[in-house]
């Protein structure tokens, strides 16, 4: 592995930790029921986003 690749890895993880810090704090403060509902909501958004990507791929191909 090249040094530039290692640097890219470190940057990516540092950025992911920084971006996720606020969300992680909010999630940690949720009750179990709130967390369950939040998980459902996020899974649904994830599926919607994947459909959006599939539609874009269909349009472009």
């Amino acid at each position, binding site marked *: 592995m090249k040094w530039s690749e290692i640097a890219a*890895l470190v940057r990516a993880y540092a*950025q992911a930790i920084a971006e996720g810090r606020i969300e992680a704090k909010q999630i940690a403060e949720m009750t179990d029921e709130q967390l*369950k509902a939040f*998980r459902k909501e996020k*899974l649904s958004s994830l599926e919607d986003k*994947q459909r959006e990507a599939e539609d874009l791929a269909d349009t*472009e191909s």
Partner: protein
Amino acid sequence: MKKIFLICVILFSLLFNSACPKKVEKTFRKASEASANLSIYGEKLIQANIDAFKAKEISFETFELLNELTRKFVEGVKIYEKALDEAEKLIKENGGQAPVGTLERLSKIFSAEVADKFTAILAKFKLISGEQSEAIKTAVAGINLAILAIREAFAGTRDIQGGFNYEMV
């Protein structure tokens, strides 16, 4: 002497037949929190892929390659989420204790459906260290961190057999 030994065996099996409720609760909470992060970073990854393609930063082939990865990832997360719900139901029905094998099976489902598939594809396409956009690298790193958190939550899960049935969907 035999009676004492027998009592010890019974007590031992009662104590260790199901995981300690507090540990189960903690493991479950950690796995549940990290699961939310899987969906959050997964959505970010898909969005980053769409944005990079629209901005012509990546080719259609790379866009499709990542699409294939996220498609499998979303399917895996769905299966794991379903298993998480089923395990939670079982634990509630069992008075806060995990029926023997429940957590280990959940851990296996997670490994088979989410972690192993994702890390295999990740290694194949060098998604973090390769020529991808910064947003893609960050989202992939976020998913990796969530996977590590779930693996860490399940590490040391003691119970071995029984629990709910796992069927590949």
